[in-house]
């Protein structure tokens, strides 16, 4: 049997809780060609260079199919891109100029500036109210699940409100998202029978989810309502309007991204702080550290560990390697954020870290669209958790992880507590 590369090992489910030792090995070859022809980039400098390189495409339609050579014992082509390609492009799978135009249209309605700079900050009272409610609900408990009862409900409620998605539909799209996420596997286990059957389910889920988004937009086209989606359907001048398909695809993206990444970030933040009682105590004493602290948590356990839809449109010479035209490129953010060439003592959690330009939200033109909202949510949630939860202790370490490698996060984080302060 062929020996596994550090990258393949990092992707094994058994290593989900701690992929970092494998990343460390991976960084010895900053740009590493994988057996399947993919180039995995694991060092900070190189990733940043590629994020700003106009010879790198994010358009999945430009990806050579199949991405992967069929894994051992399987005739299946790489599944993920197919499922994604079946949707219309959205802002993460587009290149300029389409990317720039669509993102430009969405920005003022979501992140605000320059037209409505207070869009996000005005949500703060609402976010506080939700977080307070979640913590109030724990009063009287001695144990709770920081994922199901804390990390999950906040981002979901907020994104539904921002986008104008009825909260009562949440269970439906939640299960589609879970199914789709569980179907993605980039590691050596992808070929297993189990993954193959999950894959079929995942494709169905993506399709149904796409239909859901399209229906919702149709409804808003007939009768405008609150939130960003309705605004995107109704407020544009005719020449600027996105096609229905592209709109639906972006709607799906926003629901999905607003749903998943923040959940993992809050869950990881709680987990990380419970593993570092000194940091937790420091944050309790100096609540103002929440702002740099959240940046450090983003660096330490970045929500998106790597991104997989980029490819080289030309030959690119980088770090002594030529990424040939047409090759898929995986950018390993989770590794870059622990690169000792960029961050001193990268495996230490330092809430006061200076010069913390992590890649937790990526960089360049695809910089996370929801970053301002995510920051605010996590700052409020983690800040209040630290302030109100009495003597929290991890029940199980490491906790069980979800299957997905990109949106890596714990499935449950059980916490024992003495109580909840007011």
């Amino acid at each position: 049997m062929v020996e596994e590369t550090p990258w393949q090992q990092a992707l094994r489910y058994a290593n989900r809780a701690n992929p970092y030792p494998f990343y460390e090995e991976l960084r010895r070859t900053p740009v590493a060609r994988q057996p399947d022809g993919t180039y995995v980039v694991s060092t900070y400098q190189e990733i940043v260079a590629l994020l700003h390189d106009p010879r790198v495409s994010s358009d999945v339609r430009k990806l050579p199919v199949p991405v992967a050579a069929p894994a051992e014992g399987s005739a299946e082509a790489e599944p993920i891109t197919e499922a994604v390609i079946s949707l219309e492009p959205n802002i993460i799978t587009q290149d300029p100029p389409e990317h720039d135009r669509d993102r430009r249209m969405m920005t003022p309605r979501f992140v605000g500036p320059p037209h409505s700079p207070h869009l996000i900050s005005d949500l703060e009272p609402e976010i506080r109210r939700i977080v307070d409610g979640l913590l109030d609900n724990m009063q009287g408990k001695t144990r709770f699940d920081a994922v199901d009862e804390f990390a999950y409900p906040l981002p979901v409620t907020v994104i539904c409100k921002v986008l104008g998605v009825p909260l009562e539909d949440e269970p439906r799209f939640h299960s589609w998202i879970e199914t789709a996420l569980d179907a993605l596997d980039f590691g050596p286990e992808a070929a297993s029978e189990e993954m193959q059957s999950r894959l079929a389910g995942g494709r169905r889920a993506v399709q149904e989810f796409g239909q859901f988004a399209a229906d919702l937009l149709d409804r808003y086209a007939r009768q405008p309502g609150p939130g960003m989606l309705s605004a995107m359907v109704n407020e544009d001048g005719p020449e600027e309007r996105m096609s229905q398909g592209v709109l639906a695809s972006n709607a799906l993206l926003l629901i999905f991204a607003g749903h998943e990444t923040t959940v993992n970030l809050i869950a990881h933040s709680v987990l990380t702080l419970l593993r570092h009682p000194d940091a937790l105590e420091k944050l309790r004493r100096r609540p103002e550290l929440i702002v740099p602290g959240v940046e450090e948590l983003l660096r330490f356990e970045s929500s998106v560990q790597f991104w997989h839809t980029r490819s080289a449109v030309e030959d690119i010479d980088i770090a002594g390697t030529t990424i040939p035209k047409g090759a898929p490129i995986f950018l390993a953010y989770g590794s870059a954020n622990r690169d000792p060439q960029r961050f001193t003592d990268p495996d230490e959690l330092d809430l006061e870290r200076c010069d913390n330009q992590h890649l937790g939200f990526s960089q360049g033109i695809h910089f996370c669209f929801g970053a301002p909202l995510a920051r605010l949510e996590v700052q409020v949630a983690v800040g209040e958790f630290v302030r109100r939860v009495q003597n929290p202790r991890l029940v199980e370490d490491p906790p069980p992880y979800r299957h997905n490698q990109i949106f890596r996060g714990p499935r449950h984080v059980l916490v024992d507590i003495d109580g909840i302060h007011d």
Partner: protein
Amino acid sequence: MTLRATVEELVREFRANGRIVIVGASLAGLRAAETLRAEGFTGSLTIIGDEPYEPYDRPPLSKQVLKGWVPADHTKLPRMREVDADWRLGVAATGLDRDTKQVRLADGEQVPYDRLLIATGTRARQWPNPSEAALYGVHTIRSRDDAAQLQKALAESPSRVLVIGAGFIGSEVASVCRELDIPVTVVERGSAPLVGALGGVIGEIAAQMQREHGVDLRCGLGVSSLEGDSGGHVRRAHLSDGTTVDADVVVASLGSIRNVEWLEGSGLAAGFWGVGCDAGGRAFDINGVVTDSIYVAGDVARAPHVLYEYQFLAMEHWDNAVLGAEVAAHNMVNLEPNYRPHLLLPGFWSGQFGVNIKSVGVPPFGDEIVFTQGSVEERRFAAAYGHGGRIVAAVTFDHGKWLEYYGKLIEQSGPFPPPPPGWDQPPDMKPVPAEFPDPRVPTAIPDVVLTGHAPSERTAEFRPRRH
């Protein structure tokens, strides 16, 4: 004690009890002071500034302040750390005595130093005819007070504003006027706006942008005189082609003058283009010998740059002030081999007519230009400047996110034309002449100037011996 130990002791002693004086209490001065403290300097620190204000930020003055979004007195620079300095604000330095190591102040006082940082920046070039410059309604814009006055004048809805000089600041003022729906005429001696900084090809695009936004732009012309009414208020300008423009607000944006007069007689290499220094910020004397105790940073400094054939660069850029100050301050409290160079790749941004313009490198060093990304029609593009087959600068219009890529290429002396992008290619990717004006033609002075000459050009003439 060994010599080495003695030197180390001296450095320790200086850091603990030395006296450092900074002249110029603005961006470079403040950032230098903060760096000195961050580097562990605990001696006495005096900061001398002729403006009565604590350090404030200038870029917003010609943008947010003029629009009325931010009051001029709300531009104070954020403090990065405690500087614990003796601030002498509202008093100018008038002389430098290097023998006794003292800075002379306008109020007659003398301030002794062990090490001195010169950060006196530049001032606005005034309209050359003093009586016309004194007319009510004639403005320049450099300081907080300038901006406050001009903002007030614009808020009173003048019938027309005349902007003389279409460099970055003049163009920004014109843009603000249009945003406020004030009629504006721009007169530029060069062939187009921004030609000094970005060349004629980009200048032509800037010109179209101005005209599309309703600016009455007149290039290749000068203003010969300003005319006031009996109340001493400016009313009219006479142009070099014999025409006139009626305006009740005139903004002279004629470039800047380096604040070096106070250094006269000091024996430093100070002149029209600023104070010469090495790449570590150490000032040169008039013989080209580096000094040990005097440093320079910010707009007033000019230093050789390795990427530009060691020509001296004077850069009137925010980044340059910050990074130059940090390097100079570091070197002031360290010794060889721990000196650091200030090898910033110049960079600039400007906002006008709804477009974010950024550049990196030194465009006037280039003689060719090629559009590399995007679309000129849509005013969203990137273009690269080349010299001798390598890329030396780039400019973006609403494409700033790609600047980092070009910056890397420039640092690596990458090829020109640069490798084509994979998507969003402009229809025409053929290099053309960048059309910078002949440096001898007077025009708005660019913000980055090459003040040396390339040795290979052999343009200097040596005089024959006469005896």
